[in-house]
C-alpha cells in the first residue's frame, strides 16, 4: 500500500548547518502488516512517522500510496491523512471536544463527511475501542486516563484509515491498562483489516505482536525482518543502544555459555519449550 523509496530528510535551519535526520530510507507497508518500529531516542523515529502521512515532506525520495506519488503536484495530502491515521504519544492530551462523541467526529468532519456519516463512523469506532454509549455525551475530561486514550484512538479510527501508526501507545500506563490497549490494537487490526505500525520502546510488546520489525538507527533503516531474526542479533542491537526482550537476553546468554539452543527465544513459551527439551534430553538418554 504505502511505499517509500530513498527517503531523506533534513531540517533546514537558517544559519545553522543542515543536519540529516533521515538518510536514504526505503520501506513498504503491505496489507495485514503489523510492524514494530524500534530505535533509541534520537534515532529519527518520530520524524520518520511524520512522513508516513505527509506531515513532513522528504527532502529527497518518493513516497507512493497505492502507486500514486504523494509528492506529485495536485495530490491532495488530506487524502493521505485519511488513509494513514497517526496517533501521537499521550494522545489524551490532544482531546478538545465538549463531548466524547463530538471529539471523535472531528476527524471525519474535516474529511468532508456529512454529520450523519461522521456520527455513524464515530460511534462504530468508539464501540470498537470499548467506550460505552453512556459516555458519548460526557466531557472527555471526566474519563479515566485509559479511557481518554481509547477515545483519542477512536478519533483517528473514525477517519477509516487503512494504516494506523501509533507512537508509544502504552507510554505511562500501568500494566493492566497497557494490556487493554494492546488487546485493542490487535482487535483493530483483525476486525478492520488495518495495517499497524507500532513505535515502541517495549521490546516484549514488539516481539509479541509484530510480524515485522524495522530498526531505525541514526536516521537509517538498519533492519527490516521478522522479530525472531531481528532480535537474534543481540550484539548488533546492543551497539545501537536498543535492548532485546528480557527472555531473549537470557537465552542468548545461555547460548554464549555453551548451551546448544537452536536460537535465542523471543517469548517465554518458546524459551520454556527449548529449555525443557534440552534439560530433559540428558535425563532421558
Amino acid at each position, binding site marked *: 500500500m504505502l511505499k517509500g523509496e530513498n527517503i531523506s530528510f533534513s531540517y533546514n535551519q537558517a544559519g545553522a548547518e543542515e543536519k540529516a535526520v533521515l538518510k536514504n530510507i526505503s520501506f513498504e507497508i503491505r496489507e495485514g502488516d503489523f510492524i514494530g518500529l524500534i530505535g533509541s531516542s534520537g534515532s529519527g523515529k518520530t520524524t520518520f512517522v511524520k512522513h508516513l502521512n505527509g506531515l513532513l515532506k522528504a527532502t529527497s525520495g518518493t513516497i507512493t500510496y497505492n502507486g500514486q506519488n504523494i509528492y506529485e503536484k495536485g495530490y491532495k495530502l488530506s487524502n493521505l491523512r485519511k488513509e494513514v491515521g497517526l496517533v501521537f504519544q499521550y494522545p489524551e492530551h490532544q482531546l478538545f471536544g465538549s463531548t466524547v462523541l463530538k471529539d471523535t467526529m472531528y476527524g471525519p468532519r474535516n474529511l468532508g463527511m456529512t454529520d450523519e456519516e461522521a456520527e455513524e463512523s464515530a460511534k462504530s469506532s468508539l464501540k470498537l475501542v470499548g467506550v460505552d454509549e453512556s459516555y458519548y455525551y460526557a466531557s472527555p475530561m471526566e474519563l479515566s486516563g485509559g479511557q481518554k486514550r481509547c477515545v483519542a484512538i477512536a478519533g483517528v479510527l473514525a477517519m477509516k484509515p487503512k494504516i494506523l501508526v501509533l507512537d508509544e501507545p502504552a507510554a505511562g*500506563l500501568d500494566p493492566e*491498562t497497557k494490556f487493554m490497549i494492546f488487546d485493542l490494537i490487535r482487535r483493530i487490526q483483525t476486525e478492520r483489516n488495518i495495517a499497524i505500525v507500532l513505535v515502541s520502546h517495549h521490546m516484549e510488546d514488539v516481539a509479541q505482536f509484530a510480524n515485522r520489525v524495522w530498526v531505525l538507527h541514526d536516521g537509517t533503516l538498519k533492519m527490516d525482518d521478522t522479530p525472531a531474526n531481528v532480535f537474534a542479533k543481540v550484539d548488533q542491537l546492543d551497539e545501537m543502544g536498543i535492548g532485546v526482550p528480557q*527472555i531473549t537476553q537470557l537465552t542468548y546468554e545461555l547460548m554464549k555459555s555453551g548451551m546448544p539452543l537452536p536460537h535465542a527465544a523471543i517469548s517465554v513459551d518458546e524459551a520454556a519449550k527449548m529449555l525443557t527439551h534440552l534439560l530433559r534430553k540428558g535425563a532421558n538418554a
Partner: protein
Amino acid sequence: MIKIDNIVHKYTVWDDENTKNEKVVLDGISLDIPSSTFMAILGPNGSGKSTLAKHLNVLLLPDEGTVWIDGINTADVDKLWDIRSQVGMVFQNPDNQIIGTSVEEDVAFGPENKNMESSKIRTLVESCLKRVGLWQKRKESPTRLSGGQKQRLGTADALAGVPKCIVMDEPTAMLDPEARKEVIRLIHDLNKNEGITIVLITHHTDEVADADQIVLMKEGHIIGKGTPMEIFSNKELLRAAKMDIPPRVELGDKLREAGIPVPESILTEEKMKSEILRLYNETKGKGEATC
C-alpha cells in the same frame, strides 16, 4: 525514619447534581519505613500510591491516622519546614518540577528559599550536581537535557534539601528504557553508598529486584508486603495487584510445570542463568554417564 499509622485519605468529588461525595483513596494504611531502606511501592493507577507519597512530604495531611517523620507528627504545623527538609520529592513529569532556567539555578531554588548563605549554596549545588553527574551541564538550559538527565536534575533538586529520605513518585513512567536504567542506577547508588532512605513508586517490576521491601497496593489498601523474593514468588498476589510478572519468573514456572526442578523465587536474570546452566551440566553429566 517514617511511620505511618492507619491513615485514611478522602477526596471530595462533586456529582452532576452538585452533591458532595467523598472518595476514599487511602483506607487505613499502616507502614514502617526504617532508615536507609530501599522501599518500593507497586500498584495500578488509582491504587492510591501517589496520594500516599504526598503524605510523606506533608503535601497532603491524613483525614484520619498519623504520619510520623523522624518522630515528628506531620500534622504539627510548626514543624512543617523541618519535615520537608527531611524528605525530598521527585515527581513523575520531568518538565513540571524544574523551575530554574539553568541547571544550577534550579538546584539552588530550594536552598535559596531556605535563605542559605550564598557561598554555602554554591558548595551545596556543586556537590548535588556532581553526585547526579550533571556538574558539566550546570550552565545549560533544562530544556536541552534528555529525559533521564531531567530526572537526575530532579533528584539533585531533592538532594539540595539535604534529606534523609527521597520519595520518588513514578520517576520513570515517562522515560525510555535507557533513561530508566540511568535513573534507577542513581537511586541505587544514593541508597547503598550514602544510606539515603528511598521510597520508589513505580509500576515496573523490573526496577525493584534489589529493593529491601516491596509493598503492593490496590484500591487504597496494602495487599502485600515483603522482600522481592517473597513478592515475586507469589504470583496470585502479583496478579491481584495487576502487576507484570517478570519473564524469568514465568519461565521458572513453566519449567517446573514441565517437571524440571528449577528452584522457586529466583530473583535476578543472572541467578536464573546460572541455575539453568547448573541443571544443564547435571543432566549432561548424567546423560553421558548412562551412555
